[in-house]
């Protein structure tokens, strides 16, 4: 283990950023290397202890849904790429020498062995099967804490729990029945195989869809940045203008507590008023807070619809001290800000101290979309999706459009 780490340290010393910085813009002192250009519709990514990368794909490429990337010659580029197993999905993580990966209804794991062919798909084990699945907000993000508890996002298959989804004039159902099996984070046991949905407990609720869900081993806390609801303006044109809808509701950054209720679908956050407000489907008028007093508050709030798709707490020593234990968030980028220009499409950094933000957020890596202004998501050349930290402290970012994987190093 020690030898492996020192080897990687030696490699990091000889890395050089790509001449065009991988097409991205990063702060002074950082450099970017394209690890691989076109892996497929990439979702989350994880680095094993020896630096081997595993990427989950949403749709199969050449019949495979998990891709392994290895860099044998130490130039930062993947020189060995191999696909495994036959399901699409989002979640991927490493725990106790096992690779865990999720489809939209199951979680599987594979023992990791050293060398060029680290997992054996024929020996995959079912950790959980039969998770609630509907085609909307289907991504089952996973994260595992230090004691082996496995947390799974089960997104709500709905915008705001209306009787008929996304339909003008359809009221919100009260209480929202979806919350019994969706719209929260469920807790399972990472060390047990063949668990059913009913073996898990609902850990936190009122969370529309936590694609960005992460255990922080430093503060020993669970965090999430769910996707806020859409279409305040088109469903309630009398209450919200296009301009208001572009900014609202806020994308909220939460520390998740056991049995915490974060508000969806009844309440949403407004970062101009600094308040949780009652959703219009439940009688809200863009001002009233009645009924939202007991909902959990965010640690930080971002402008609307940026689509946070991964969260990573950085614990490495490669980056300057300010980044240590801070949070990176990949904002996949909006569509529901239309007709106004879109937002997101970058990776943000939030400094942390004692498990809480210690300063404002800032843009860390940008330039993914390939233009200064994105009018329609289809115009984006790349969209930042998954985040991982390598054993040497490099930051890896995946792209959901073409499947580019970037490695960010610090070169000063």
């Amino acid at each position: 283990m020690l030898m492996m780490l020192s080897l990687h340290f030696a490699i990091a010393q000889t890395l050089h950023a790509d001449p065009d910085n991988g097409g991205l813009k990063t702060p002074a002192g950082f450099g970017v290397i394209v690890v691989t250009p076109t892996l497929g519709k990439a979702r989350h990514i994880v680095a094993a202890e020896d630096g081997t990368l595993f990427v989950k794909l949403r749709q199969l490429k050449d019949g495979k849904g998990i891709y392994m990337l290895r860099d044998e010659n130490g130039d930062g580029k993947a020189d060995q790429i191999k696909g495994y197993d036959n399901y699409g999905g989002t979640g991927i993580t490493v725990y106790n020498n096992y690779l865990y990966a999720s489809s939209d209804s199951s979680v599987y794991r594979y023992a990791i062995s050293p060398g060029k062919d680290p997992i054996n798909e024929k020996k995959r084990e079912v950790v959980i099967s039969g998770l609630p699945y509907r085609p909307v907000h289907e991504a089952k993000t996973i994260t595992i804490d230090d004691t082996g508890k496995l947390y799974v996002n089960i997104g709500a298959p709905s915008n705001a729990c209306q009787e008929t989804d996304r339909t003008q004039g359809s009221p919100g159902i009260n209480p929202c029945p979806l919350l019994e099996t969706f719209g929260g984070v469920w807790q399972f046991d990472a060390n047990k195989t063949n668990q059913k949905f009913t073996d898990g407990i609902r850990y936190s609720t009122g969370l529309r869809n936590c694609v960005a869900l992460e255990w922080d081993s430093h503060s020993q806390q669970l965090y999430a940045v769910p996707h806020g609801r859409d279409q305040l303006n088109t469903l309630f044109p009398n209450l919200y203008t296009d301009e208001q809808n572009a900014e609202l509701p806020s994308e909220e950054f939460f520390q998740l507590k056991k049995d915490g209720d974060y508000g969806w679908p009844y309440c949403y956050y407004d970062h101009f008023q600094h308040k949780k407000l009652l959703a219009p489907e439940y009688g809200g008028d863009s001002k009233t807070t009645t009924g939202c007093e007991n909902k959990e508050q965010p640690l930080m709030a971002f402008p609307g619809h940026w689509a946070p798709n991964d969260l990573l707490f950085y614990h490495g020593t490669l980056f300057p001290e300010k980044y240590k234990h801070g949070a990176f968030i990949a904002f996949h980028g909006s569509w529901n800000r239309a007709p106004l220009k879109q937002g997101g499409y970058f990776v943000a950094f939030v400094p942390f101290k004692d498990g809480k933000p210690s300063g404002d957020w800032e843009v860390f890596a940008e330039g993914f979309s390939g233009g200064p202004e994105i009018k329609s998501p289809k115009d984006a050349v790349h969209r930042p999706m998954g985040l991982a930290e390598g054993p040497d402290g490099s930051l890896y970012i995946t792209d959901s459009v073409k499947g580019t994987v970037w490695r960010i190093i610090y070169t000063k």
Partner: protein
Amino acid sequence: MKKHFFYITICCILLTSAIPLSLAQQEQIDPGKSVYEKHCLSCHQADGSGVPGMNPPLSKVSWVTGNKTKLIQTVLNGISTPLEIDGEVYHNPMPSHDLLSNQQIADVLTYIRSHFGNTANAVTAAEVKKVRGK
């Protein structure tokens, strides 16, 4: 000099009054555009390109330019099972828009069939009425 000034002034008056007029005229010529902007744009986007993985494109898809009955039904009833178009799966539901009038639906469908690179013929309110009545 005086004459010049006169012409410039006339020009300015003509310009300033001509721009808003032509916009208003356009609106009148194309009522489908305003229905589109209010009821469809946020999901299918201003250029009809859609949102990958969520909302399908309206540009150059046979669904839009082909069979009118199926197209009218799409707007009246919505769709809730994911569609696959050119290898991309779209996960959001398409909400029903049966609150729109026959004329509004005809207008918006005529608009999407003749924009975004599409060149199909118009849909009439009578055609929408016939499908709604079924």
